[in-house]
């Protein structure tokens, strides 16, 4: 009588362990967990959801409107969006409109907020005529410095790219307290010597594609407002014959349509479809394939 009971208990314990393991395993394997970009309202009725409004908000992955987290602060002059969602117990209440407590501090135009003055500003969730049903204070901070990263790892003073290949660099605005700042900003990337390395695209987003042109070293600079950050780009000789691809081995289709920030004066190969190590200073309509 005792043995079957012990055996059954052991069986149940095993089943429990298996169930727990199967529950934890998927969690452990999802390496790219992204915390929701929400923050609870101060009156506890719901959550404020942060939205990126442009392509150059450091809080949103490239091409995404969904931020990875609610910002601790947004950049001065940075643009962003906010939504509001009720907690379950308040579901069914009419959706509030969001407004700034002071348009001189955080401006609201056509649903886009813009940080105008450093410090805290309350965003009010207003229901009906004027009833404030929730509050969220947003801190606006000046961009103190920029960091440049490659594949989400902050780069040192120099990065390398093979001639004919590309790498992607991302600039991130930081506060004086080293906090990543939210908000879409105007970036301005430039290459000191486009005959060595040039940027693809307009160079007005936080992300820039750097293309190695010819062996040598040049300086890439990114500017946001009055804040600049530079990184030396060393172009190494091409190791492979002839194809242009990302350094990570992926094929990069570049639909470059702008010359902003590019001071190239070398031969323009507009409309060129390059399949070999192209070292010309093209700027427009260039489709680069290979890999």
């Amino acid at each position, binding site marked *: 009588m005792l043995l079957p009971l012990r055996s059954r208990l052991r069986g149940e314990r095993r089943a429990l362990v298996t169930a727990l393991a199967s529950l934890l395993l998927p969690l452990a394997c999802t390496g790219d967990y992204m915390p929701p970009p929400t923050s609870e309202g101060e009156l506890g009725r719901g959550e404020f959801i942060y939205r990126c409004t442009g392509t150059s908000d450091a809080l949103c992955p490239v091409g995404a409107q969904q931020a990875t987290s609610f910002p601790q602060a947004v950049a001065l002059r940075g643009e962003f969006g906010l939504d509001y969602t009720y907690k379950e117990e308040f579901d069914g209440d009419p959706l509030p409109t969001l407004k700034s407590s002071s348009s001189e501090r955080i401006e609201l135009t056509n649903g886009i907020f813009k940080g105008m003055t450093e*410090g805290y500003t309350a965003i009010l969730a207003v229901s009906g005529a004027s009833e*404030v049903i929730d509050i969220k*204070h947003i801190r606006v901070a000046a961009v103190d410095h920029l960091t440049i990263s490659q594949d989400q790892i902050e780069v040192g003073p120099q990065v390398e790219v093979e001639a004919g290949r590309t790498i992607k660099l991302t600039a991130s605005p930081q506060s004086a307290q080293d906090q990543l700042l939210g908000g879409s900003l105007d970036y301005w990337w430039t290459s000191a010597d486009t005959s060595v390395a040039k940027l693809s695209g307009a160079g007005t987003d936080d992300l820039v594609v750097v293309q190695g042109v010819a062996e040598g070293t040049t300086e890439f600079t990114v500017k946001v407002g009055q804040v600049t950050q530079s990184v030396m780009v060393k172009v190494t000789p091409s190791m492979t014959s002839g194809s242009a691809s990302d350094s990570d081995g992926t094929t990069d289709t570049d639909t470059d349509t702008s010359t902003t920030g590019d001071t190239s004066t070398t031969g323009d190969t507009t409309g060129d479809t390059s399949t070999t190590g192209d070292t010309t200073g093209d700027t427009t309509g260039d489709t680069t394939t290979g890999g």
Partner: protein
Amino acid sequence: MHTTRIPRTSALVLGLGLLAATTACQPDYGSLEVELGTTPPAAASIHSTDFQIQIGTAVLINVKPVSANRNDYIETDTVEMTSQDRTVMDVEPGPEAWSFVLIGAGIGETCIDVVINGAVEDCIDARVVEQE
């Protein structure tokens, strides 16, 4: 036709008595209890006689009028708060009865009227200061 005449003095006494009885049942405003409902990121000073918050910030307050006589205010008594200068400190109703949100709109001083059952009963000094 037979009519009953009430002496004028009796009528006066009766009227005064009724008036006294009616007012005796009503609360008489004495003061306002104020409690901070949220903790703003920038310091705020909230008392029953004066409010001070920093520009751009908003705080929720819960108020309770205190009667000076034996008749307390009850939930059906309406309490409104209105700012004499909304460009300095704005006041909006909160999500619950007798709750309000003070909003620091601009640097300066003003007064917040406390209106109970439609009558202005008090004025609370309000100041909005720069953020520290």
